[in-house]
């Protein structure tokens, strides 16, 4: 029992890869998020970041390790964590308002009450006047904000944001980052944020983790001692640039063995070999 909102210990997960050989997605991941902390996770694509989130959200169960959510280890995590996946997943047959109240509806909140709660947040999320609009008529940034509002209304002890701005153009993206920082600095909800963008990771975070390519492990963790409120000027501050250089190096080192790999390298996954008692050959296709 710790005071953390989230404590992840020794998390490991494999999937059936091509040809039936198990593919280790993540391996021995330790992760902590204190209440009210903004934690970002950076890693190259295919490092098992989304697997990690699916595990924390309770969509899948780990092969190894434990996930402790607000002091509770066992039981289903479904309904206790607010998860915002990469796609905005706004339902096309629901208006913006009806989309964002979906988690409240599922929880059985009365319709008028759910609408009241949501409408109060519309201006802050830049969605005022678009309550009755269908999502397919909204801009990318607005869709993102609507999906985020839905996540916030989902409540729970933890916000899991999986590259929420990944599909946006650079300009909209940086606007959304600034907006998110503003919202978060007011609300201080415990947040876990996945990205492969180093600038984004530093700009948002209190603390950050760097993950290695498959199998995803934690290569580095560091606190981000940059002042809040965060403003765009920070991106060019010496402390920011120094931290960025350090993270890029860590990412490059973490990726090194893979970069050197020829087309198809059979690698002996020692961890798997030890746990199952027989060697497992894993093909790494590049």
């Amino acid at each position: 029992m710790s005071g953390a909102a989230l404590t992840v210990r020794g998390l490991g997960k494999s999937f059936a890869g091509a040809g039936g050989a198990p593919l280790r997605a993540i391996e021995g991941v330790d992760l902590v998020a204190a209440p009210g902390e903004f934690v970002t996770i950076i890693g190259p694509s295919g490092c098992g970041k989304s697997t990690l989130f699916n595990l924390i959200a309770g969509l899948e169960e780990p092969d190894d390790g434990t996930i402790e959510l607000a002091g509770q280890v066992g039981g289903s995590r479904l309904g206790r964590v607010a998860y915002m996946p990469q796609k905005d997943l706004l339902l096309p047959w629901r208006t913006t308002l009806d989309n964002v109240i979906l988690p409240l509806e599922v929880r059985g909140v009365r319709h008028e009450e759910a609408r009241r709660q949501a409408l109060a947040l519309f201006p802050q999320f830049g969605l005022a006047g678009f309550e009755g609009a269908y999502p397919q008529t909204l801009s990318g940034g607005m869709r993102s904000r609507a999906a985020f509002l839905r996540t916030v209304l989902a409540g729970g002890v933890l916000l899991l944001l999986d590259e929420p701005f990944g599909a946006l153009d650079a300009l909209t993206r940086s606007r959304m980052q600034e907006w998110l920082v503003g919202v978060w600095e007011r609300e201080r909800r415990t947040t876990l944020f996945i990205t492969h963008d180093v600038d984004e990771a530093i700009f948002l975070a209190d603390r950050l983790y760097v993950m290695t390519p498959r199998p995803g492990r934690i290569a580095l963790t560091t606190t981000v001692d940059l002042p809040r409120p965060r403003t765009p000027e920070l991106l060019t501050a010496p402390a920011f640039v120094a931290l960025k250089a350090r993270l890029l190096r860590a990412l490059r080192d973490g990726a090194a063995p893979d970069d050197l790999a020829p087309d198809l390298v059979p690698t002996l996954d020692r961890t798997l070999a030890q746990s199952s008692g027989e060697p497992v050959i894993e093909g790494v296709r590049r």
Partner: protein
Amino acid sequence: MNTRAGSATLLWRWVPPLALLALLLLGWELTVRLGEIAPWLLPPPSAIPAAIIADAGDLLRHTLVTLQEVLLGLVVSTLLGIVTAVAIAFFPLLERALYPLVVASQSVPLPVLAPLLIIFLGYGIVPKILLVTLICFFPIVVNTVDGLHSVDRDAVNLLRTFGATRWQIFVKVRWPSALPLFFSGLRVAAAVSVIGAVFGELIGASAGLGYYIRHETPLFHTAAVYGATIILMLLGIALFVVVRAAEWVLLPWRRRLAERSRV
């Protein structure tokens, strides 16, 4: 949408088929008149409206009978189709057990089945409803199953993270995402539904347009037979349009998509 552009598109959509139809009718009319073909063999198209008007009371009565059979058949096949599709989509074992039977149901030749049904169930309305159901069931089930399978897995997972039950996931995500394809199936069903009813009426009935056609043909009232046939076609088209309209009203979120894809 720009209204002028809108009416221009509308014009462009309707003029070619109507012009072609007019041309065909004109050719028909001229062939009959210039070739001096006997009207009982092939009446000129201009004789058909006259035949319809002359027999309007009877035709209306028979049309209503056929319409009733078709509508009841459509209702039965829709309810049965939805239940079957949901069962198939939810239980893989049922999919393997039921799907081949659903396909088989569409492959049974109606000319063989219709007389058997009449023998079993008599000259009343029930065998006609069954024949309509048999024809309409297949497109509804196949499309609805595809619709239920087309659900976005990620959207289902999102609902699960909200703590949603299987039932909530079905009501809030799976069923709504299946609706467009369900309506596609229903549209096809509506267009072909008339065939089932007429088949039943041709073989054994005391009323309905099929009965009327069977009754008038040996009397060489050929224009009246054509008239009844045209009414049957219009019935199919009307049902199709009604389903389209229902879709427009019930799925407002599809309107924009439909407009966009039409451009």
